[in-house]
């Protein structure tokens, strides 16, 4: 495969890794975060410390990235998850920016000039394997009672509580899990670019991840996969229009969101069970419509 195309695929895989976690948090649990680039930064720097300073293998770097992101998320979650909706969102935004600013001023790790010389460990194969594990884990999670509890929180928090769901614990579970995904993505990014700089993990990166999740469709894993691939490739394909590239990118995203307001997949899944569910829902809707029409005509009949 072309070196350039391969590179884009790897970037798409890295984005997807982070997006999978955010999909769990935003798409399935209904919490918005604008600080996930912060967790990517933690993962990137932690893994770089592991592979360069501690001379550990890449796998250990990835593990360290996940663990440190999880640790930060757990602490932040404990403090902020009691906040409702918008307030939680602002708290994550503050966290993301704080991480970036700390790294900007942390000279031992290169400060704002960045940190060159991270080994190029990221390959097509190890990204593919990690993403496959990530997708499988997420799919199994959302189809279990734990995943259903998260979805219940998204749908109706008060009712979820009354149904015996420990809302605080499950929100933190979603937050920590999503941070692990972001941390691992950060590790792959660091070892793909071989150079990391705090600027790479600014607010715009967090926003990009959230855009991909919404673009792909909230509550859909296949939507997130599709979204990550499409939105990583799109800016590259648009290189033809040169400096109008980002304008065209924005226009394309807006157009797709207008034509598919629930995102590309919008709550549907491209899986045997998902397709079956879509078909069953269609059938049920038709049956319900028929039943309603019948009762309506019966009522009209009895009135006349």
């Amino acid at each position, binding site marked *: 495969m072309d070196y350039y195309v391969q590179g884009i695929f790897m970037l798409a895989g890295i984005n997807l890794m982070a997006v999978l976690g955010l999909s769990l948090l935003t798409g399935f649990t209904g919490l918005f975060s604008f600080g996930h680039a912060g967790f990517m930064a933690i993962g990137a720097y932690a893994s770089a410390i592991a592979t360069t300073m501690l001379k550990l293998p890449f796998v250990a770097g990835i593990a360290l990235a996940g663990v440190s992101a999880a640790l930060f998320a757990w602490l932040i979650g404990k403090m902020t998850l009691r906040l409702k909706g918008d307030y939680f969102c602002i708290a994550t935004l503050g966290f993301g920016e704080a991480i970036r600013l700390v790294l900007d001023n942390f000279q031992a790790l290169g400060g704002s000039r960045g940190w060159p010389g991270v080994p190029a460990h990221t390959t097509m194969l190890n990204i593919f394997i990690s993403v496959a594990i990530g997708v499988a884990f997420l799919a199994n999670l959302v189809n279990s009672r734990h995943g259903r509890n998260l979805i219940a929180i998204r749908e109706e928090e008060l009712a979820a509580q009354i*149904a015996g769901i420990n809302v605080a614990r499950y929100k933190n579970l979603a937050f920590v899990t999503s941070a692990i995904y972001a941390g691992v993505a950060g590790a792959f990014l660091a070892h793909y670019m071989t150079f990391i700089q705090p600027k790479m993990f600014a607010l715009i990166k967090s926003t990009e991840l959230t855009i991909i999740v919404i673009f792909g469709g909230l509550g859909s894993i296949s939507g997130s996969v599709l979204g990550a691939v499409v939105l990583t490739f799109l800016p590259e394909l648009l290189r033809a229009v040169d400096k109008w590239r980002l304008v065209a990118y924005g226009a394309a995203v807006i157009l797709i969101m207008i034509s598919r307001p629930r995102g590309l997949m919008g709550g549907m899944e491209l899986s045997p069970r998902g397709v079956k569910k879509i078909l069953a829902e269609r059938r049920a*809707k038709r049956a319900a419509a028929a039943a309603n029409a019948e009762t309506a005509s019966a009522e009209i009949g009895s009135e006349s």
Partner: protein
Amino acid sequence: MSERTTTLSPGSEILEVRGLTKRFGGLAAVSGVDFSVREGGIMGLIGPNGAGKTTIFNLITGVYKVSEGSVLFRGEPIQDREPYLIADMGVTRTFQNIRLFKNLTVFENVLTACHLSASYTLAEAALRLPRFRREERALRDKASELLKIVGLEDRAEVTASNLPYGLQRRLEIVRALALDPKLLLLDEPAAGMNPDETEQLMRLIGELRDRFKLSVLVIEHHMDLIMALCERIVVLNFGMKLAEGVPDEIRNDERVVEAYLGAPAGGK
């Protein structure tokens, strides 16, 4: 009036509320309310709008923190517990303004609420280990069974928000039953229903009580439902208990008639 003094033997009460008080700033929404629900009984809670009925539900289920007084469930104080723990103990409710998981199907709504019947861990789910598969199958069976009992099985795959109003209320009740509750709190279950649907609902509540050995506390404005269904009734007004007794006593209580029922007493 003599019947009001019927004393219940201790231990036969599933819920006991003592001196229950809730203040929002300077306003006492509920103050010093006492009552108890007999094991297996159906108790009605009535009163004008703003009398504090739903607030009492929120206090019992832990949604609001109690300012003063106590709530005893099977003799155990539960007023300081988190809502999910109270639900786990066997107290659950429906809502005045229906709160379903709107974008999920009827089946998924019930299946989600069945979660306490399974105990597999996150890791077991991630690796799809045998216990996960076994318990998950049991959960699905339980959800189907419950839907069959209330006659929603042919709507299992319909999205909850697409159900007709009456069936949404019914679904909320089954979702509550999925927790295997001992005490069910129904907040205006017949609101917006026509007399036919109300009649059906009444029969359903009675049947479910017998089948699941429930105790029920119900808030309702449909007086025929309350009078026919409940063994005892508590009347609230301005956050305080105005009266308590069997339906006939309540119907003939002058204070209740004045505050709430509004019809002249003894209009034979």
